C-alpha cells in the first residue's frame, strides 16, 4: 500500500505513560495498512489545529441493508489520501461478547485484508466496529463476514444492535438468561435492525439484575432488567462467616435504602415486603445472600442522550415479567410499542420523547397496559388533568 509515513510528534506524546495507548495501536496497524498511516497523520493535524478533519456524514452501505455502515470522508484528502474514505462497519457482536481465538482471527483476517486493521472493541452500543475503509471495500468485507457467520449491526433509524451483560454465563445474580434473550430478540428483529423504517433509533439492552452492568437504564429505549419477587435467599452459616470480617451494621444495614434490614449481631432479618431489590446487601455478601427464586425481569423504557429535550432514564412499564422463551409477552409488548411509535412518532423522536409528548397515560391506553402506581415516582403535583369526555359521561 501507500508508502508515506507522517511525522507525529504530538501523537507520540500519547505513547507515554502506563495505560495502553491507542496511538501505539494505530502504529501497529500502520505497519500493515496505509489507512492507519493516514489516520495517524490526520490525527496529528487535529492535535496541532485543535479541530476535527472529517466531513459530515455520507450515505454508503451494503446491498439490501439500510444500516450498519457509517460513511466518513476526510476534509483534507489532498494531505491524507489514504483516508479520503474512512467508513466504519458495525458488526453485530456475539451476545455477552464471548469469543474464541479462532473467531477473533477470522475477524482480523478480514479486516487486515479489506480495511485499516483498526477496530473498536467495542462500540458504545456494543458492536464490533471496523474502523475505516473505502467504499469499494464495503461489499467484499461484508461478503467475507457473512461467509464466516457474521452480520452487520444497526445504524440509522432502526433497531440498534442489542447488547447484554454476561448474565447466567458468568454471574450468580442473573435473574433471567440475558444472553439467550439478546440473541433471540436480535434474530427476531433482523428486518427492523437492518432496514431503518422507524422515526429514529431503538435500542435494547438486557441486564440480569438491578446492578445493570450494561447501563441499560441510561441508554436503551427498552431496558430489560432482571429482578425477583419472593424473598432474598439467605445462608445463615455464611452470614456468620461474614460477621467475622465485615461490619454488617455499618456496611450492609445502614446502606439499605429502605431500612428494611435488622441485625442484632447474630441474626439478620429482612422485611422482604419492603426490600426494593436494590442489590446492595447481596453485592456485599455474595456468599450469604442471593436474589429470590421467583425470577424474571422488569421492563423499563425511554432512556436516551440529551439531544434535544434533555436526557432521559428509562422508566418502569412492567414491574415483573417471567422471561421464558419464546418471550411472547415481551414481544407482544415490543410490537405494540413499535406499532404506535412507528406510526405516530415524529421524525427523530425517540420513544421516550414520544411518550412524553403524547402523555404516558394516553400511551398506556394505546399499547393496552393498565396504569399502575409502580410506574411513577410520585403522582402529578399539578392540577392540569386532561379529563376525557367519554369518561366524564360514564361518571354521571
Amino acid at each position, binding site marked *: 500500500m501507500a508508502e508515506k509515513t507522517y511525522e507525529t510528534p504530538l501523537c507520540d506524546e500519547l505513547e507515554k505513560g502506563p495505560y495502553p495507548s491507542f496511538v501505539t495501536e494505530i502504529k501497529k496497524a500502520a505497519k500493515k495498512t496505509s489507512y492507519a498511516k493516514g489516520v495517524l497523520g490526520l490525527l496529528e493535524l487535529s492535535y496541532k489545529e485543535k479541530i476535527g478533519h472529517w466531513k459530515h456524514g455520507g450515505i454508503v452501505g451494503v446491498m439490501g441493508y439500510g444500516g450498519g455502515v457509517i460513511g466518513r470522508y476526510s476534509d483534507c484528502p489532498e494531505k491524507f489520501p489514504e483516508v479520503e474514505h474512512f467508513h466504519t462497519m458495525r458488526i453485530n457482536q456475539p451476545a455477552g461478547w464471548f469469543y*474464541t481465538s479462532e473467531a477473533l482471527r477470522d475477524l482480523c483476517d478480514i479486516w487486515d485484508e479489506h480495511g485499516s*486493521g483498526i477496530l473498536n472493541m467495542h462500540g*458504545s452500543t456494543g458492536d464490533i466496529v471496523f474502523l475505516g475503509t473505502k467504499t469499494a471495500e464495503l461489499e467484499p468485507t461484508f461478503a467475507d463476514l457473512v461467509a464466516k457467520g457474521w452480520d452487520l449491526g444497526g445504524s440509522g433509524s432502526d433497531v440498534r444492535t442489542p447488547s447484554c451483560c454476561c448474565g447466567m454465563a458468568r454471574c*450468580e445474580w442473573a435473574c433471567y438468561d440475558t444472553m439467550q434473550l439478546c440473541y433471540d430478540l436480535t434474530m427476531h428483529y433482523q428486518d427492523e435492525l437492518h432496514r431503518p423504517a422507524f422515526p429514529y433509533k431503538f435500542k435494547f439492552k438486557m441486564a440480569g439484575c438491578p446492578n445493570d452492568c450494561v447501563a441499560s437504564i*441510561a441508554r436503551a429505549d427498552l431496558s430489560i432488567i432482571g429482578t425477583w419477587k419472593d424473598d432474598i435467599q439467605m445462608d445463615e452459616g455464611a452470614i456468620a462467616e461474614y460477621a467475622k470480617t465485615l461490619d454488617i451494621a455499618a456496611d450492609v444495614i445502614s446502606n439499605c435504602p429502605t431500612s428494611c434490614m435488622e441485625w442484632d449481631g447474630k441474626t439478620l432479618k429482612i422485611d422482604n415486603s419492603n426490600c426494593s431489590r436494590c442489590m446492595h446487601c447481596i453485592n456485599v455478601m455474595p456468599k450469604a445472600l442471593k436474589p429470590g427464586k421467583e425470577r424474571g425481569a422488569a421492563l423499563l423504557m425511554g432512556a436516551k442522550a440529551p439531544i434535544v429535550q434533555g436526557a432521559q432514564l428509562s422508566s418502569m412499564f412492567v414491574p415483573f415479567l417471567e422471561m421464558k422463551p419464546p418471550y411472547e409477552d415481551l414481544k407482544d409488548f415490543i410490537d405494540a410499542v413499535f406499532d404506535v411509535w412507528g406510526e405516530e412518532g415524529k421524525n427523530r423522536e425517540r420513544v421516550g420523547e414520544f411518550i412524553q409528548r403524547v402523555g404516558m397515560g394516553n400511551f398506556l391506553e394505546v399499547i393496552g397496559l393498565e396504569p399502575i402506581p409502580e410506574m411513577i415516582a410520585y403522582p402529578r403535583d399539578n392540577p392540569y388533568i386532561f379529563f376525557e369526555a367519554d369518561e366524564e359521561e360514564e361518571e354521571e
Partner: protein
Amino acid sequence: MAEKTPTDIGPPHYEKFLPPVIKKNYGKWAYHEIPRPGVLKHTAEGGDVLWSVRMSTARLIATETVRWIADLAEKYCDGHVRWTSRNNVEFLTTEEKNVDPLIKDIQAGGYLVGGTGNSISNIVHTQGWVHCHSPATDASAIVKAVLDELADEFTSMKLPAKMRIALACCLNMCGAVHCSDIAILGIHRRVPEINHSDLPKVCEVPNLAASCPTAAIRPVKVDGKNSVEVLAESCMFCGNCYTVCPAMTLNDPEMDGVCIWVGGKVSNARSEPAFSKLAIPYLPNNPPRWPEVVEAVKNIVEVWKKDARKYERVGEWINRIGWPRFFEKTGIEFTKYHIDDFRYAGLSFKRTAQQRF
C-alpha cells in the same frame, strides 16, 4: 461480488464461543470472590471454579493486538476470552495455576490487569477526532492522559466504591456519559457558522429551523437564496442543527473544549440511578494531553477518595455532604452556568430553608 451476499443471518450464536465450564454451569454460579485486583473467581453450585483475568485496552485496538490476545487465550484459556461492557478484556480459565503467568504475559505486553471491585475501570468513550464529524474535543487522547494519571486506581481496589468515568466528544453523548461518576464532555461554545451558499443545496430550511430546541434558527433570504440566521443569544451550542444540516458548523479551535460532570450512576444499588451534574463548565482543548482536564478529574477523584464513606459513589457522597461542600472541598468555582436554565430549571433551585453553615 457479483453474487448477492445472504443477509439477515444475525450474529453467531453465543454458545459456540462459551468455554465448557460455562456451558456446564450456565445459570448455576453460586458466588464470586475478587482474590486480587483484576482477578475474579466464580464458584459454581457444584464446586467448579472459573477464573477471569481482566485486562485493560485502549478500546481502539489493532488487529495485531487482537491476534496477540487470541494467542494468550489459547496459551492459557483453551482459546476462550471475552470483552466486558466497558471495553476490558477478560481471559477465562479453570486453572488457578494459569493466573500468575497470564498476568505476567499481559503486563509484559504493556497492558494492565485490574478494573475490578472498588477501582476505576476503563473510561467508556467515543470516536473523537479519530472518526466523527461533530466532536468538540478528542476522545482517545484525553482518555489516555487521564488514565495514565489514574492507572494506580485501575490496578488496585482502594477506592470507597466503584468509580465510573466516561467521555463523549459532543452533546450527542454516545455512551452513558450522562449517568457517570465523572463525565468528560466535549462542548462547543460558538454559534454555528452558516455556509449560505451550500445550505440550500444540502438541507431543507423548515426541518433545519425546527431542529433547534430554543427556536434560535429563523429562515431568511441571503442573496436571494433560502437560508437561515441564528439568534446568537438564544443559541446554546447543542449542535442539533449541524446533525440535520452540514452547512451549520460549530467546530472551532479556540472556542471548543471540555466540561466536567459528576455524581451520576446507573446501578440501582443503594440509591436510584442518577444523572451527572455540572461541575466545571469549561476547560480548553489542550492537545495532546489536556493537562487541565487531567488535573480536574484527578482532583475530584482524590477529594472523593479521601472524604467518602465505604460504598459511597460520588453522587451518594455529594448527597450526604451537600453541593456547597462539594464546591468548597474540590475548590471548583461555582458560576451562573451551574444554575440550570433549560426546561426543568426551577426544579433544581433550592426550595427549602434547610441549609448548612
